């Protein structure tokens, strides 16, 4: 049994933790929250210089070639530090889409610049409220151009290009669109978490280049599966930070002459928070194994990691506020940074509800005895 990260990856995680502790204390996301800056450009630059943006990109395309497990350990630390950078959009989604479905020419053109952080990519799917089911998309590409509106695209205002999901019929379901090109309008939208910028993207006969490998709606789900795993690590990181914040406060804050952490009402709450974080972490590890090995169980492992991380993120960040009492509801305390981010991340790839239905659909397609043996 070797269900853990290697020493090299643990070292990478420790380096990431040290770097972000220094460069991304809570004052950094707070500055983005309180200003019009869409993200921390200097932090993004440093992250790229350290090779994190190219972690999963093979060396032949200018990356570091550490693989997807490296992205998972970095993601956990970015989540812990509520980093205000377009890492998820550019790395888990845009880079992954090119790795999975790009032609050789597309990989040559995009991946080296994604690795250096020179290009920022993102992903657009949702067209309306409700389940973002690829099969229900109305956007289509005809004559090489796209006309549609995509809602709440993370980093849509700052990204250089976007991977757009469309109803591709028998053709490709994912296209690349240059966000600096003609026929693209970006409208910055306010979200529950302004530490990460979002935009509504309107395309009017915008030039769209197919990702030829992305055939059928399953290809969109597959991209989401690959993205859900590092996202789960990012969510677990945020939940861990909120748990530590609550734990520290429970030791330092006195009421009725004793630390509030000596009351079982608070102790048991913190134990429940710890339990949620550990279950989510264990499930995220399963996801990491599945993306690393590209296992047939990936849709199941990704769903499990995703659902568990969404539940933990919500529970822990809201109970962190509760542990802080009235102070937790103030702008000045950092509790709301974790709370906002947790719910944002729980929506970004589609809510837990739709992942639950998808999980059961996947389990019904399989022999559960085989799964138990995994």
């Amino acid at each position, binding site marked *: *049994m*070797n*269900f*853990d*990260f*290697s020493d090299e990856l643990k070292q990478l995680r420790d380096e990431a933790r040290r770097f972000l502790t220094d460069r991304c204390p809570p004052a950094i996301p707070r500055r983005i929250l309180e200003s019009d800056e869409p993200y921390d450009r200097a932090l993004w630059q440093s992250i790229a210089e350290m090779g994190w943006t190219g972690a999963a990109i093979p060396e032949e395309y200018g990356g570091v070639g550490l693989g997807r*497990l490296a992205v998972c350990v970095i993601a956990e630390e970015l989540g812990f530090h509520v980093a205000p950078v377009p890492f998820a959009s550019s790395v888990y989604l845009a880079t992954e889409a090119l790795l999975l479905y790009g032609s050789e020419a597309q990989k040559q053109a995009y991946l080296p610049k994604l690795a250096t952080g020179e290009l920022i990519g993102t992903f657009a799917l949702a067209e309306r409220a409700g389940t973002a089911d690829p099969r229900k998309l109305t956007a289509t590409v005809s004559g090489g151009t796209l006309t549609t509106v995509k809602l709440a695209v993370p980093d849509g205002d700052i990204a250089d290009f976007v991977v757009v999901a469309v109803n591709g019929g028998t053709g490709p379901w994912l296209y690349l669109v240059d966000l600096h090109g003609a026929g693209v309008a970006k409208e910055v939208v306010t979200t529950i978490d302004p530490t990460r910028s979002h935009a509504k993207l309107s395309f009017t006969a915008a030039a769209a280049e197919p990702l030829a490998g992305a055939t059928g709606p399953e290809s969109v789900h597959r991209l989401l599966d690959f993205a859900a795993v590092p996202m789960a690590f990012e969510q677990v990181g945020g939940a861990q930070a909120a748990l530590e914040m609550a*734990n520290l406060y*429970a*030791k330092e804050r006195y009421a009725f002459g*004793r*630390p509030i*952490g*000596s*009351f*079982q009402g*608070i*102790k*048991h709450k*913190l*134990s*429940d928070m*710890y*339990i949620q974080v*550990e*279950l*989510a*972490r*264990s*499930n995220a*590890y*399963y996801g*990491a*194994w599945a993306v*690393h*090995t590209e296992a047939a169980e990936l849709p199941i492992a990704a*769903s*499990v990691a995703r*659902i*568990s991380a969404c*539940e933990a993120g919500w529970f822990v960040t809201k109970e962190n506020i509760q542990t802080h009492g009235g102070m937790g509801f103030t702008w000045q305390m950092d509790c709301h940074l974790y709370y906002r981010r947790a719910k944002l991340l729980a929506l970004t790839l589609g809510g837990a*509800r739709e*992942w*639950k*239905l998808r*999980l*059961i*659909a996947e*389990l*019904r397609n399989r022999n*559960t*005895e085989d799964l*138990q043996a*995994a």
Partner: protein
Amino acid sequence: MDFEDTAEEAAFRAKARAFLDANAERRKPGAVEGYRRGQDVPGAMERAKDFQRRKFAAGFVGIHWPTEWGGQGGTQIQNVIYNQEEAKYDVLTGLFGIGIGLAMPTICTWGTLEQRETFVAKTMRADYVWCQLFSEPGGGSDLAALRTRAEKAGDGWVVNGQKIWNSGAHYSDYGILVARTDPDAVKHAGLSFFILDMKAPGIEIRPIRQVSGSSHFNEVFFTNVRIPDTRRVGPVGAGWKVALTTLMNERHGMRDAPGPDFNELFSLARQVELEDGLAIDNAAVQEKLAEFYVRSQGLKFTKFRGMTALSRGQTPGPESSIIKVVAANKLQDILSYGLDLIGMAGPTMGDSMPVSGIFEEALLYSPALRLAGGTDEIMKNIIAERVLGLPQDPRVDKGVPWRDVPTGPRATGAKQ
């Protein structure tokens, strides 16, 4: 990152399988391990002892114990691997759990060489069956509040008092007993630990009828029961520390809650008709199923993380402390939801029901799993204090002689 055995682990697993194939029947596919299921069947004890003797002869008892205890000198991970394999076979080994899992490690850690020589080998080969005499009506979660007295008399001790929740006391040869030897000391300091011959005069054992209707536990009453001083384990007054060794082994060995899990609920949902068709086709049911699956998997992979630590020769991290509390609550939630799906026909017990009545059976034993070996509340205190480092509750029993600690109107047995 993978789920594979190392070459040495794979070889050990193959050896364990070969032994089990030759000496036991595999569980039928889909069979669910109940809580102490099969223990009451006539002849169960003889069959269990017979298997235990063959297991001992083959070197699968005390796998990870040091050789000076009489163990095999193997690793923790080998012990886990053997137990994983054994769980796939229809064998009753729970009867020996207290002797082998709790009493022997405690005696070998704290006892005399003579005690080790008298008890270890015979316990390993099922000559001696053990029970645990710790809890009392007034001392459960607060074990150190116990009142059973052991008073010095000549070259031995005389015990008076009462214990409760003693699994298997009625068929045990020996018991491990914690008793109060000094009521004037502060409560944790006034205890001592003994090995008690369960056939000694003055012991009365009464079965306790549980919610499930069966009786696996007992109350045990002591009236002037004599124990020679050679059967004391550890120094006089060190009983709490010795008992902690037992409790740590109990928690370390904590397993999943036996009973229906996700697969059984999934199977049930594929059989049961609701308003609009099969339960499995209902979106609300699917959401619940997914939540249970995620909890089951979370537990499974948390255990895998612990096994990985063992496999690397490390101690499992604190994440292992969550298993019991999550597993027992998940079981109750699955049972309640499964029975809800069965609906009006749900109360019926027995094999005629979907998934063979195991939901109904487990419903009645499941409350025990949230109590035995540390209640949910105690487990959460342990997580809060030992893992998260939160302070203890202020206590009124600290630094006070035991006889002055307040007790409520429900306390039984007068303090002396």
